[in-house]
């Protein structure tokens, strides 16, 4: 992708993201995984049923937990929108998620291997597809336009926002429920422990230094009102840099930062994350006071595919007029950049 921020900044001007709805289930489910912890065979959903019932899908107990969270957020996002109900045939769902389909797949595989393939839950089987999370949300709110999932790990929800803007731009939908949803299963914790990565691995009995967080953030993206919508988040553009950060990349950032003023930089990089230390240092070196930098992973943990949407939710809490650069570092240090601002209402967006 073009590493020049100046180009994508203009690409999607005029889209707004209503204040994102944030649901996070964190401490109640996080487990400390040290050597010797076994994955329980029993279903673990008993304590979730009140929330499961709320999502309104046909077989809620079969859906992934991430999709339940996302459905809850989507309903809240729609409820928060003033005005008449939206046309369902113009309402789309585009979600970023890397982990949502893992646990259903893992559970069914284990069931098949241990107890027989004829015993796997047919209602849970569809939720082994990464797109099931978006489809479940669509079913919960009756969204009948474009529905798809973006699987690109930590970049997933930033790309989902970009795809959503593209969908509106091309007339494929008028409104898009967009964001990210992630689920932390025992498998995820097991794999993280197996990875022996110092940023995830801690001494026995101590929580991982960068906890993985179960979270969903969904906002409603649509064309901005021509006269400006006070308070909404305006998506101004998206771009990516691939591979390790080079000197040339840094120079381009410097040029971009000198032409665009940011009040806030939101990144998904945790302070103790050794792999992204160089990138964090490069970005921080470019910023001048009073620009504030927030590494969302420091306070919320690793929200993985939902990270970009989480950043927008943080921006939604800031005063109108705040302009932010959202940075997500993904696999192989691929970097996604989204420029977004909280509209003051004074600007005209056409």
């Amino acid at each position: 992708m073009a590493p020049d921020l100046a180009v994508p900044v203009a690409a999607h001007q005029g889209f707004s993201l209503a204040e994102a709805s944030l649901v996070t289930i964190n401490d109640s489910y996080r487990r400390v995984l040290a050597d010797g912890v076994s994955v329980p065979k029993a279903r673990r959903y008993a304590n979730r049923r009140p929330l499961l019932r709320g999502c309104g899908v046909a077989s809620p107990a079969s859906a992934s937990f991430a999709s339940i969270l996302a459905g809850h957020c989507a309903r809240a996002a729609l409820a928060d929108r003033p005005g008449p109900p939206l046309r369902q045939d113009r309402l789309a769902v585009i979600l970023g998620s890397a982990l949502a389909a893992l646990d259903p797949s893992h559970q069914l595989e284990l069931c098949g291997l241990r107890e027989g393939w004829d015993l796997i839950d047919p209602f849970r089987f569809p939720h082994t597809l990464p797109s099931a999370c978006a489809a479940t949300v669509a079913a919960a709110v009756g969204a009948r336009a474009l529905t798809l999932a973006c699987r690109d790990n930590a970049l997933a929800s930033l790309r989902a926002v970009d795809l959503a803007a593209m969908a509106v731009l091309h007339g494929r939908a008028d409104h898009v429920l967009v964001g990210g949803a992630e689920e932390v299963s025992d498998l995820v914790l097991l794999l993280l422990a197996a990875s022996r990565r110092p940023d995830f691995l801690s001494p026995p009995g101590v929580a991982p230094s960068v906890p993985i967080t179960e979270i969903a953030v969904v906002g409603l993206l649509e064309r901005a009102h021509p006269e400006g919508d006070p308070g909404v988040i305006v998506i101004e553009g998206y771009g990516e840099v691939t591979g390790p950060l080079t000197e040339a990349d840094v120079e381009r950032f410097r040029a971009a930062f000198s032409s665009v003023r940011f009040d806030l930089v939101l990144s998904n990089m945790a302070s103790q994350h050794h792999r992204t230390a160089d990138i964090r240092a490069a970005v921080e070196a470019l910023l001048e006071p009073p620009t504030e930098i927030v590494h969302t992973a420091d306070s919320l943990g690793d929200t993985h595919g939902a990270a970009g949407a989480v950043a927008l939710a943080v921006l939604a809490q800031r005063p109108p007029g705040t302009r932010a650069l959202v940075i997500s570092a993904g696999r192989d240090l691929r970097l996604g950049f989204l420029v977004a601002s909280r509209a003051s209402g004074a600007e005209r967006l056409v």
Partner: protein
Amino acid sequence: MKPIAILGMGASSPFGPGAQALWEGCLAGQPVIRELTSYPTSGMKQITAVLRPSGLSNQVIPVATMAIEATREAIAQSGEYGARLQRVRLGVFFATAPGEPDELRLIDEEVAGFEAPGHPILPRNLPPDAWAKVLGDSVMDAVLRAFHWEEAYCLSISAACASANVAMGVAADALQDDLVDAAVVVTAESLPRLTQAGFSQVGALSPTGVRPFSADRNGTLVGEGAAAFVLARADDLAPGTSVLAWLLGFGESCDALHPVHTEPEGRGMEAATRAALTDAHLGPEQVDAVYVHGTGTRQNDLSEARALSRVFGERRPAAAAIKAIIGHSLGAASGLSAVCGVMTLKTGLLPPTPGVEPLEPECKLRFSAEPASIVRARTILNNGYGFGGINSSIVLGSSDVSRSVGT
């Protein structure tokens, strides 16, 4: 949308590598149904699938290999344009349906093995790179590495069994938005054990064979395959560039109803088809042939028949259902039928649909048991539907069609 040029395509199918092999196999109309032997199937109700003929050397080919070979073929067919993909802002759009990467299957076997009484799962028993492998898209990564496309914009899209069509549509939008300068769409599916077992559990598999739109149809069979396309903006083509076909329109909808079942009346399918035709600036009367989704299940085919009956009215366009021959290759299914659709535009032939008689009473399409020569094949409708009620259609046009429509 503005027409997007299809400059090259490739395929890997039960008939072996190559778009031509797929096309000739489909024209011959002989499905190759075999018993699954690539993994233990004890406990599964139905264990037949559409697999490679025994005459071909590799019965089970790694899905990454299929994807790479299909991509290589597509690039080679793109000629000079394909040769310069390395030097432009390239977008790689990867489409797949299932959430069970091979790496997860291997880890699950490991986990199940260690979880015998007295043997808890130990992280140290798992490979350190398991996290990255399970989260990564190993097939997409293999393609990126094989062609040194590590710097490309790469997007992994999942829209269940509509994935390939949706990736084509997203790639077209990305080209028109100037997000990328060239696009490669890659779709590939193997025969995941969990998918086979899951389809069996939901009662979707046939004990005999796939007979789409037959009144006697009784289910589908899972197949394997890969397809790849090189796409370009019309404005970027040098004079004299050979264009295989044009992508004229894309439409998608969601039933928003049920994780598995389609909406009985096919309203969502109809909406996707109409959206694709509108996108292509075409009316239903201008569609010369239809590559149906046609899984062979009772409900899916009935919904599609009703949707297309409303779209086409009294017209009875020619149609083909290649799942009758190559089975249901999940996320890659609409990609493989798009390859055949391009071949139809080039040759004027439509593959047979074996076993279609007696025809489903509500189906108004014209299937043929023999290769049918179409007098005029300038536009093709290609359908792909998936779990969760995701419906997609694309419209393909022959190499000379963009001068008269869509521009």
